[in-house]
């Protein structure tokens, strides 16, 4: 199975899983525009590689390894979209297809360089969030300093997710915060400093504010700001 082919599968399973909980064979077939029979074949293939769990008639879900690949591709795809629109000034409608082809070929080094050049954008031109990279850094400024000294940060082994992905029973330690320095300052004044344990008590409907519990107090934080607060949550059940 070709690398590109495999990555396309993982990506669409990732998207479908986000929407419906699991990816049905027919849905994948429709999404990738291929015959259902060849989807079944490919899913078995991916299962052997340990990237998906596949139950006939139930559909497929990503394993941890599969998810990691899918998220990396998603991140590259969205970074490329930002690059194509903002730097090359290509029409926003066209960048998706273009990025779809490029996402499979760029290296980790290119991905990192893109992120730095674009100043660590938090969303793609269509508004989807761009996930964090997997380097062992605490914030984007560190990445820039390290670029100057020429050292490459080691890969991160923690599980970093945005605070908005924390479940009701989960807890996480603040790993880094992305965004405007005045906002970061405000958040740290209110107790959201690095390494602080936080939990999410409530999420308002329709991407409304997120209620965060920190140092015995509750804060309502705008969804877009909360998305840029990343926590280390080793035990968070991801869905």
């Amino acid at each position, binding site marked *: 199975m070709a690398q590109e082919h495999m990555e396309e599968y993982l990506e669409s399973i990732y998207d479908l899983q986000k929407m419906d909980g699991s990816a049905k064979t027919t849905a994948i077939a429709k999404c990738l525009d291929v015959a259902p029979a060849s989807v079944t074949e490919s899913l078995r293939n991916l299962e052997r590689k340990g990237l998906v769990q596949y139950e006939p008639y139930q559909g497929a879900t990503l394993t941890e390894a599969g998810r990691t690949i899918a998220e990396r591709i998603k991140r590259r795809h969205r970074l490329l979209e930002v690059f194509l629109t903002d730097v090359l000034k290509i029409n926003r409608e066209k960048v998706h297809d273009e990025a779809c082809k490029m996402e499979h070929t760029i290296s980790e080094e290119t991905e990192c360089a893109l992120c730095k050049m674009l100043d660590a954008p938090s969303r793609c031109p269509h508004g989807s969030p761009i996930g964090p990279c997997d380097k062992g850094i605490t914030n984007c*400024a*560190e990445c820039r300093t390290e670029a100057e000294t020429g050292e490459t940060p080691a890969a991160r082994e923690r599980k970093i997710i945005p605070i908005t992905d924390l479940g009701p029973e989960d807890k996480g330690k603040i790993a880094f915060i992305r965004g405007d320095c005045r906002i970061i300052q405000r958040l*740290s*004044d209110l107790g959201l400093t690095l390494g602080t344990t936080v939990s999410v*008590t409530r999420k*308002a*409907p329709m991407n*409304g504010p997120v209620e965060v519990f920190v140092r015995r107090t509750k804060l309502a934080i*705008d969804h877009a*700001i909360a998305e840029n607060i990343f926590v280390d949550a080793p035990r968070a059940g991801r869905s």
Partner: protein
Amino acid sequence: MSGCGECKACPPKGETKIKDAEYTIALAGNANVGKSVTFNQLTGVDQIIGNWPGKTVERAEGLLQYKGHRIRIIDLPGIYSFSTYSLEELVSRDFIALEQPDAVVNVIDASALERNLFFTIQLLELAPPLLISVNQIDLAEKKGITIDTEKLAELLGVPVVPTVAIKGKGIATLTDAILDLAQRRPTPPILRYGKEIEERIEKLVPRLEQLTIPYPVRFTAIKLLERDPAMVKIVKEQDQAIVGMADRLAGEIETMHGESVCVVMSAERYQVADRIAAEVITMYPISEGPQKKSLTDRLDRVALHPLLGYLAVFLVIGGLLVWTFVVGARISDVIQTILVQIGPYEPVITGPVAGILWNGAFSGFVAGVTLVIPYVLPFYLLLAVMEDSGYLTRIAVMLDRGMHKLGLHGKAVIPLILGYGCNVPACFSCRIMESPKQKLLAAFLVTLIPCTARTVVILGLVGKFVNIWWALALYAFDILLIIIVGRIAFKIVPGESVGLIMEMPDYHVPSASVVAKQTWARTKSLIWFVFPAYIIGSAAIQVFYAVGLLNPVNNLLAPITVFWLGLPVIVGITLIFGIVRKELTILTLAVLFGSTNFAAFLTPVQLIVIALVSMLYIPCISVIFVLASEFGWKRSLAISFTEIVLAIGLGGIAFRLLGLWM
């Protein structure tokens, strides 16, 4: 330095209305910790609420008389930090550093010790004679939190008094401690940060000591390290080199931590706060997470529910408005009857000019009283109850998403709801928004909200003579219009919009004194702005009337009123009078027609058009002045002009569309 105030030779500290005070005390602390309740407990009724000189920040001042001493107490704004995030923070730190109060009382919430101590630590950087009041210890104990206040005093090196301000517990001890502190004025000990920070502070201190900076040296050094813009500006004027040096030192800290220096400093302070909190808190049962079964949590399950939450918002705000106008109309009638007994309300215009003026001024006064007392006051009272209980923050959370579409965020619901009472205090309350753009946008939308005076017009013309559904339809249309206009304004007005970051306090039973104070603070602006405008404006109109300018003005406006809006020519003048006070539209109509049965003179369509135009065309003259004082004349007039065009435009369209089926 003790007893410096006794000789009365020194000028009073800062601008004040309280003369001859021996000592000056400042109350400082986070929002929602019971600071206002403590202030009310200490000062009683002797309070002056005003503005900080030249700033759009509210200032509350009061007098405490104790054991023969007169002590002036300043209630500083509720803040979380001394960075320059907001004007409140700047005002507070300048007051403590520059006016040097004889003592600073830091009110802290026992249930959220870490975050409150974070602020205490910053207060210690300013090194005023400091005293800590650990408030709401009863609520903390209910949550299983016990605080060893003696230990806390020992660790911080300043006196600590436990209080339950709302019940008056500990206030006597606090008062004694305040007096003692003000007489001794001790300098609190220094709390040290990490080595790499302290080393750099020490490098700056000796050089700063050679300058004459009005702030304490250690504080100046820390703020320079944080690259605080206000501090950099002050020091730069005296010694450019030291600013460069501080910047370099800050850069070193940033390289070490890979974080902006401000964030490093916050983390550093929190580390100290966490350490102290861990030593003084005993928790039983030990719980790290939020309390799942608390009353607040149970109430929030409804208040923040995806469906029930919106229903609650709708019912509460709707109920508030309906109740206000149903009850208000009754009270208004009673007051009017009484006032008309006292003075002549509609006498013949005879005699000297003074008589005519008096007549106008008196009717303006009556109008003010019959609007403020029955409608605005009860409305604001109930709103303050909601606000102090903590429910208003929940409304803000529920409506945050919607407000985003208008470039605002959840907190903007406060000015918008206040607008239904009177636009004047609503415009003032737009100060709670963070960015200048959001302040302006909120104020603009507030002026489109039908205040009580406009509601009187809508109900009096449409509700009474067409039907109540058309009146409600006007309200609904107004909300729709606010959304559309707000959306356009958001795109046009330059500047940035900041997202919501807001504390969610626990629900609690509102305090009568805080509610009364808040209501007064808001109603007061009506007395300063609206009453004079009503009285002077009404007198002027009376003259206008007597001189016989009625017909010329009506004829001048005829192209708009008769041709475009399809109204009788006589209505022109009422719209001019409405600028002074909106409900004058309806009163003038009654005088001009010589009857209050408007249905006899106007068709339903005309009634709706008049109400619609009155609802939208420029805010009244008081609001124009408030907008000018908050945002400048240019913007105030731009808003007024936009709304005239909008009102007349929509009025004409409504006339043509409604004419099709009515």
